[in-house]
């Protein structure tokens, strides 16, 4: 009897470890998937508070610190995109969030916010060189945010809208001139993920202004499949612009973010990238995470992927939430959300909630990814 009770106790302990953590960490997954307004609003309010704090502080990253600059830019961009997606899903929230979307989008367009890119291009400013041949694809992130702001806020400042028009026209011209469907982010470096953001920005500009960009979107979509997509289903992280040669491995972080950005431009391309991404999911005890490198490739973590542990990356896993929700991969969404909750450490509740580990950039990214869907092209 003693031995049987001890065996039953061990079995109960094992079953608890198998099922309880997954159940606890996934307790909100279904609510995020179906777009629970209370959850969405609680995270949105955290980002509204961040934008107010940032406006008061006007924190400016040093031009020489490329990564700090990219993080600041992405934080404002993702805040704008996340809030814009909420407004598309809940038009009655527009009065509250449209001014914040515009403020966040305008922050991404400030010259000091792109100083890291200007420095990388040896002093050439992206908006001061729209007639030139250099890609400056990093500015597609702000361009996408500004496009969504213009779509939702009829009072968006006209002078910035004119700059946006000029930038989009430059991107369209550069992309149509590229045989590989790639344009440079920094000198000699092209990132398919950034070019997916370029395509997204062009497409959203079309939605906001009525301009017809179908030709350039089709040009880009055809070249994603021909030049940028690896047989693994992941996109190459970094490539040569003219020859289309890979300069890095096919990676999950780039593919996850590209799938999100591609959704703004072309639903079919985004769904294809999502399928490739989910082929690289690793699961354990009901938790899911995305492997950073395609089979046959290996490497360590960097600023794109975040830490890579046991082959899976923080960024690829977080990015995967967006296509999982947008394209209805509910089981994958649930498994990946459990991992996000486990390591993201959601705190607060009621009126405001946040993921404590990620800080403002983590919360902005998660707002955009956990509410992805309404922005996807028809």
């Amino acid at each position, binding site marked *: 009897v003693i031995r049987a009770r001890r065996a039953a106790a061990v079995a*109960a302990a094992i079953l*608890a*470890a198998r099922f*309880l953590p997954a159940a606890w960490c996934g307790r909100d997954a279904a609510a995020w998937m179906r777009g629970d307004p209370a959850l969405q609003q609680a995270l949105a309010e955290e980002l509204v508070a961040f934008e107010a704090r940032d406006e008061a502080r006007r924190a400016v990253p040093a031009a020489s610190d490329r990564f700090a600059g990219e993080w600041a830019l992405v934080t404002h961009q993702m805040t704008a995109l996340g809030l814009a997606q909420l407004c598309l899903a809940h038009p009655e929230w527009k009065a509250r969030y449209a001014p914040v979307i515009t403020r966040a989008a305008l922050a991404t367009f400030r010259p000091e916010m792109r100083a890291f890119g200007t420095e990388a291009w040896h002093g050439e400013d992206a908006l001061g060189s729209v007639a030139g041949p250099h890609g400056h694809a990093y500015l597609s992130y702000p361009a996408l945010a500004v496009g969504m702001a213009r779509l939702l806020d009829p009072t968006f400042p006209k002078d910035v809208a004119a700059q946006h028009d000029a930038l989009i026209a430059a991107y369209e011209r550069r992309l149509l001139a590229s045989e590989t469907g790639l344009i440079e982010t920094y000198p000699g470096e092209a990132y398919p993920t950034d070019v997916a953001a370029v395509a997204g920005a062009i497409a959203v500009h079309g939605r906001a202004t009525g301009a017809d960009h179908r030709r350039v979107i089709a040009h880009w979509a055809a070249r994603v499949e021909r030049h940028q997509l690896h047989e693994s289903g992941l996109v190459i992280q970094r490539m040569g612009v003219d020859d289309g040669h890979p300069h890095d491995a096919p990676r999950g972080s780039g593919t996850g973010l590209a799938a999100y950005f591609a959704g703004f431009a072309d639903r079919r391309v985004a769904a294809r990238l999502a399928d490739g991404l989910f082929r690289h999911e690793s699961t354990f005890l009901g938790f899911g995470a995305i492997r950073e490198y395609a089979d046959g490739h290996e490497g360590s973590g960097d600023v794109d992927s975040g830490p890579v542990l046991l082959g899976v990356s923080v960024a690829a896993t977080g990015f995967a939430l967006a296509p999982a929700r947008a394209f209805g991969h509910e089981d994958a969404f649930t498994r990946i959300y459990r991992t996000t909750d486990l390591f993201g*450490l959601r705190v607060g509740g009621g009126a405001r909630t946040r*993921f404590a580990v990620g800080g*403002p950039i983590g919360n902005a990214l998660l707002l955009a990814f956990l509410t992805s869907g309404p922005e996807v092209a028809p």
Partner: protein
Amino acid sequence: VKALLVRALRGPALVLAVYLVLVQLFAWLSAEDGLIKPSGMPDLLVAVLGLGVLLLRLGVLFVLPGVVLYRLIAPRKPE
């Protein structure tokens, strides 16, 4: 039964209480930046606390329920 419950739950409850206090402390200290910034960790205290909280969270979620169940079900050692 009461003695059995107290014996099974006292230690785990203490661990859970410490964990919940540390989570709130970490949430308060990391409100500005989170655990990681592009230039590295925000500061040593937040980094150590954050990693400690995450390790404790793994223990609380994956180990603690099993410990409680084991203590409730397995036969007690003779006094």
